[in-house]
């Protein structure tokens, strides 16, 4: 006869088995149409480019070498691929600036929402969510309407007689930056709000009671309390900024590329799939480092508060 423990163990094994069965379809789809192909990208990055796109099944590390270096056509020496490096640098610096600007704009906005009376907060949040769920392409296109030579900004500048001919705003780094700030701002506000909503305002009162001025309360109490939200928001903005494709393509034109556009180029005109694959993995690696930083930060702050 089975003991009670054996019966319980068997029930638990059955439970776990049925749980695996239940989750199988979702896992399968994600594996087939998202995760699995990523593994194949790794394989492709070690192959030789085909003549008309695609690849030749021939092992090569050329793609990885040319991520950072370029071979001189005449004397075969290697030097840094300045074109790639400048695109990497533009991607990282534009993403960092986007993160900082969205933080500067988003922090007060999230704080504003969190300090409204409870029944009004939903409405303000709703106003943040609408642009968030509006098609990214449409928002980028809307930004183009504002930035064009005959767009809103130039129209205003000329109306105020600050300038008599339109200033070129489109197809600049500035346009890409502005576009990304516009597009990713809600991603900063929402996690910031989530952690600000939980602030115990008696802590802020206690701060004022103990002679802290407004700025000191902000610096010593509010910011440390919402630090997890700041990290979460920054990661949520930084990662998609780094991989941005649509915004630099529409607002940056052909000249102000970011990593995403460089990758696309290898699969289009560049016809160098292995390089595109290697660049993709490089991008993913940068993202993973950022995510790891985030996870470590989260577990650390959890440990200290709980």
């Amino acid at each position, binding site marked *: 006869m089975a003991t009670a423990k054996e019966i319980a163990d068997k029930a638990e094994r059955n439970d776990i088995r049925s*749980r*695996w*069965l239940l*989750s199988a379809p*979702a*896992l399968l*789809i*994600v*594996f*087939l*149409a*998202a*995760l699995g*192909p*990523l593994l*194949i*990208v790794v394989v*492709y990055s070690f192959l030789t480019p085909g003549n008309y796109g695609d690849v030749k099944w021939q092992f090569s590390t050329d793609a990885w070498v040319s991520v950072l270096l370029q071979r001189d056509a005449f004397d075969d020496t290697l030097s840094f691929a300045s074109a790639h490096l400048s695109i990497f640098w533009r991607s990282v610096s534009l993403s960092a600036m986007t993160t900082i600007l969205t933080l500067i704009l*988003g922090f*007060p*906005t999230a*704080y*504003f*929402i969190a*300090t409204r009376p409870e029944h009004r907060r939903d409405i303000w949040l*709703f106003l943040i969510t*609408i*642009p968030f*769920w*509006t*098609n*990214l*392409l*449409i928002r980028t*296109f*809307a930004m*183009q*309407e*504002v930035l*064009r030579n*005959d767009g*809103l900004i130039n129209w205003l500048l000329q109306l105020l007689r600050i300038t008599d001919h339109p200033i070129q705003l489109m197809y600049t780094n500035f346009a890409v930056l502005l576009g990304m700030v516009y597009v990713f*701002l*809600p991603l900063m*506000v929402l996690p910031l709000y989530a952690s600000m909503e939980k602030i115990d*305002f008696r802590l*802020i*009162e206690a701060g*004022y009671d103990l002679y802290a001025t*407004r700025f000191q309360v902000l610096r010593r109490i509010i910011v440390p309390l919402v630090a997890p939200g700041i990290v979460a928001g920054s990661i949520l903005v930084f*990662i998609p900024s780094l991989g941005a*494709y649509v915004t630099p393509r529409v607002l940056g034109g052909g000249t102000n590329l970011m990593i*995403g556009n460089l*990758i*696309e180029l290898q*699969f289009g005109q560049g016809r160098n799939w292995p390089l595109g*694959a290697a660049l993709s993995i490089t*991008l*993913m690696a940068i*993202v993973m480092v950022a995510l790891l930083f985030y996870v470590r930060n989260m577990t650390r702050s959890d440990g200290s508060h709980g």
Partner: protein
Amino acid sequence: MAKRFDVRQQNGFVTIAMVCFFLLYLPIGTLVVFAFNDNESLAIWKGFSLRWFHVAWNNTLVIESSIRSFQIAAVAAILATITATMAALATTRTKPYRGLTFKYAFINQPLMVPEIVTAVALLIVFSRIKIWTGYSGLGYLIAAHTAFCIPFAYLPIRARLESMDLSLETAAADLYAGKWQAFRHVTLPLLWPGILAGLMLAFVVSLDDVVITEFVKSGGQDTLPTFMLGQIRRGVTPEINAISTVFLVLSIGIVTAFFFFSRKRT
């Protein structure tokens, strides 16, 4: 009386917040206004007109890609919601077992990888499969959309499940309900708002996708967003504004429904 000291206020924060809200809506507002412009050019206002809506309506490419967008979004959202619901049931309300964290990471993986990387990966794999099988229908787009919709459907369903009282099912079991009956009569009705939220999120996310679709689509498989991307590259007429406006109204409609729906339930 002296000026009151409000402990919740921070200097300048209200102003920045207002500027923020203004800036969020200024570009969209401009876009919508010029959709009603009776002019070829986007720049000069010539008067109110609905002509660009007519132009868009009579553009077969627009209509075709719109229909395709909705087809893909509907199928992908439903598939994603069903599988995500099952996965959510399998990963909540249990003590940790081997592979649980693995499942979380696995299901949410599409959220963590930049879209362009997934897009490239799918391009590589699907182009090979297309050569092998000769099939080049909408199946690829649907599979890709389903995969990246799964985490969006999964999150609200899981959240709903975790906030649900486990004792309800025990109570049902106590009242002679079998496992399936308990699910059918207790869990599912309570889970319904979460499922609906997941479905709506998945639908909107699929409808909005540009990057993955752009890389996966075969010739003549434009969705509305990829069609618009092509148009923007070529130079724009207010027709794009008109299409965007319709799209915008639709998204806002869905989000508003979602907002009021989730609000009523909480």
